[in-house]
């Protein structure tokens, strides 16, 4: 930029020649220069102001537009915040130990109505009655026209029914999706599974809640959304359960019994492979029976005899006294014990079955084989009430069973409040105190597995904590050998299954009358068995309610004639299914003649 001089020499010389003051030229030039500077600065400032206001305008209009759009738009939930998987509100499936389905869900639809949207309420009601016979046309017509906005019509629909309702074509009839609990095997394992019903209902969905059995006991686990896709695996084996139910129901008919229960349990883990109770029901359509006033609780098909039934289990208890006596070293299997019947204790008279007398002396092994009340009573008196009580408690016979069924915690065994010697005597042969078959199964498992406490469970699991020992191994082995003798030469001879050394003890208890005392002709028969005897693997309990065997000249009501053959058939059929091979038993040693020269 060329700078114009304030006093150009040519003009000053000219001005001097004319005699003018050259300072005027300098002022003139200075003014021109200042004007030019001012103009330039003003332009620059104007541009800057313009840019600044444009910037502000842009910023504020961005904010304004954003606020306007936020205010005007419909709020939308942000989709999929994070990587979490969308949970479905379904209930977990229940499988058996082999992964076969015991309970699952099925998508169906519920039917509801918006009567105000209906075009032809009267005709619609008539068409609905044609599809669903249980609905009443006048009732529906009244409710469709009384001004209500909403009403439920049906909880679940089959696809065919849904199509039929679609074909009515009335806009006031609407469908809501429903997850329905389905038990594909029908009555199989009904008492284990219990049942499920709808809880809170809405048009879009309904929660399914357990009403009984394991569905209620494990309700929180089954409804847990985190575990909804992980099925619950039970210890029940579908095939074994089906076989047991088949034989038990046939046996109940043959023995004219009004009820039956069966439990098959693994002696080491306490896992229950089959649990059945008759009469039974269909958990898909849980009945709500109305019972007569004088009916027993067992007459209700919903009643689980195996878990809820408290019975005086009779002679099956005798082995506990014998095992404890041997464990304490008071007696050995061949020790002779006073068994002279009848025995008098205070004002009480203790008799044998049908007034027999096995005495005067009997070995412990023979007491079990012949089922002598008096002999057992003498062993129990040697043990004493305090130790007997502690032992029965450690076997789990005096507490509600820990099994995962909703009914179990409420079933408290009936124990006399005081424990005088007469209770010690009667409890030793299973009278005077009542317990449930499931507790008996756990106690027999403890007796036969080497003496470890067992808590019955319905959940299939591979790792179980080490169990507490309550009985010595030698006593356990001797007890199983005694139980084996009951089958080979005692009261349970019909329980012999070729190839499977069955050991067990029969129990026959008279049914208590409602008003007190006992019935003469009504009994509860129990057979508690363990097999195979040389290496006990499973415990089977079979209980029949009021059985009577009528093939002989007079009706027989002892367990040896009723519960034992049923149990033997169950063992014969289920043992191969459990993977047990039939074994040829070594013969008794006294059968071999020793030859000596």
């Amino acid at each position, binding site marked *: 930029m060329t700078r114009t001089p304030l006093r150009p020499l040519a003009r000053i010389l000219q001005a001097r020649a004319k005699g003018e003051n050259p300072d005027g030229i300098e002022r003139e030039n200075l003014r021109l220069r200042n004007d030019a500077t001012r103009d330039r600065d003003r332009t620059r400032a104007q541009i800057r102001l313009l840019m600044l206001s444009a910037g502000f305008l842009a910023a504020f209009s961005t904010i304004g537009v954003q606020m306007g759009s936020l205010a005007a738009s419909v709020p939308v939930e942000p*989709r*999929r915040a994070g990587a979490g998987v*969308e949970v*479905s509100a379904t209930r977990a499936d229940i499988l058996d130990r082999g992964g*076969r*389905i015991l309970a*699952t*869900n*099925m*998508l169906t639809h519920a039917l509801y109505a918006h009567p105000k949207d209906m075009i032809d309420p009267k005709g619609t009601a008539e068409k609905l009655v044609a599809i669903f016979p249980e609905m009443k046309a006048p009732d529906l017509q009244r409710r469709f026209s009384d001004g209500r906005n909403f009403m439920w019509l049906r909880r679940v629909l089959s696809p065919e029914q849904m199509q039929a309702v679609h074909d009515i074509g009335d806009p006031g009839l609407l469908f809501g999706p429903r997850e329905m609990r*389905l038990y*594909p*095997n*029908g009555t*199989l394992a009904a008492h284990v599974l219990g049942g499920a019903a709808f809880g809170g209902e809405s048009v879009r969905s309904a929660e399914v809640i357990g009403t009984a059995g394991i569905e209620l006991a494990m309700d929180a686990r089954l409804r847990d959304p985190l575990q909804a896709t992980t099925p619950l695996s039970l210890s029940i084996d*579908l*095939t074994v359960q*089906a*076989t047991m139910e*088949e034989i038990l129901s046939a046996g109940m008919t043959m023995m004219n019994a009004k009820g039956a229960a069966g439990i098959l349990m693994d002696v080491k883990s306490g896992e229950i492979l089959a649990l059945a109770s008759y009469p039974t029901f269909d958990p898909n359509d849980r009945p709500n029976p109305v019972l007569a006033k004088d009916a027993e609780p067992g007459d209700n098909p919903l009643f689980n005899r195996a878990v809820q039934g408290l019975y005086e289990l009779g002679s099956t208890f005798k082995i506990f006294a014998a095992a404890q006596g041997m464990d304490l070293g008071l007696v050995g299997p061949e020790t002779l014990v006073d068994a002279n019947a009848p025995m008098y204790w205070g004002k009480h008279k203790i008799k044998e079955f049908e007034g027999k007398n096995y005495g005067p002396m009997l070995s412990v092994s023979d007491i079990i084989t012949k089922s002598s009340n008096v002999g057992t009573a003498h062993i129990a008196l040697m043990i004493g009430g305090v130790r007997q009580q502690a032992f029965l408690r450690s076997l789990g016979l005096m507490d509600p069973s820990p099994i995962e069924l909703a009914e179990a915690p409420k079933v408290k065994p009936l124990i006399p409040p005081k424990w005088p010697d007469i209770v010690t005597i009667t409890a030793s042969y299973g009278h005077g105190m009542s317990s449930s078959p499931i507790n008996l199964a756990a106690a027999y498992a403890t007796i036969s597995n080497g003496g470890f406490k067992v808590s019955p469970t319905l959940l299939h699991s591979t790792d179980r904590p080490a169990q507490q020992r309550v009985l010595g191994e030698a006593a356990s082995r001797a007890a199983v050998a005694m139980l084996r003798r009951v089958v080979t030469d005692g009261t349970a001879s019909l329980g012999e*299954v*070729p*190839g*499977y050394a069955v050991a067990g003890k029969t129990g026959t208890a008279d049914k208590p009358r409602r008003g007190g005392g006992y019935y003469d002709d009504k009994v509860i028969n129990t057979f508690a068995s363990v097999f195979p005897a040389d290496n006990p693997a499973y415990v089977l309990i079979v209980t029949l309610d009021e059985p009577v065997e009528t093939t002989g000249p007079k009706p027989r009501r002892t367990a040896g004639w009723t519960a034992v053959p049923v149990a033997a058939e169950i063992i*014969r*059929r289920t*043992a*191969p*299914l459990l993977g047990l*091979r*039939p074994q040829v038993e070594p013969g008794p040693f006294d059968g071999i003649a020793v030859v000596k020269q």
Partner: protein
Amino acid sequence: MRSLLYIASALAVMALAFWAYQENYATQQALRDRDALESGIDVLQDALAVQRAEWAYLNRPNRLRELATVNFDALGLLPLEPGQLGSTAEVVYPAPPVLDVENPVDVIGDQEDPL
């Protein structure tokens, strides 16, 4: 020089705006695809659950037992029983092979009556 820089940055802003616009729509499309896939998976899972339930229903022990009874002539199925289990020791060894004898020669001569 300076104006070149302005033009370049303006172009860069436009290019970025174009890219962001494209990405926005691509994301929305991906979300829509994902939703469609998920609802497809849900439908298939429901169908699978129905199939499993149906399979379990058709294989319920009662029905299989009835079918085995009805078709006994064709199938001959019986319940598993202890007698059907055996051990390898019960399997007999195969019989030793019989030699193939052709053109037998009689090595025992007939004695004629010397008298």
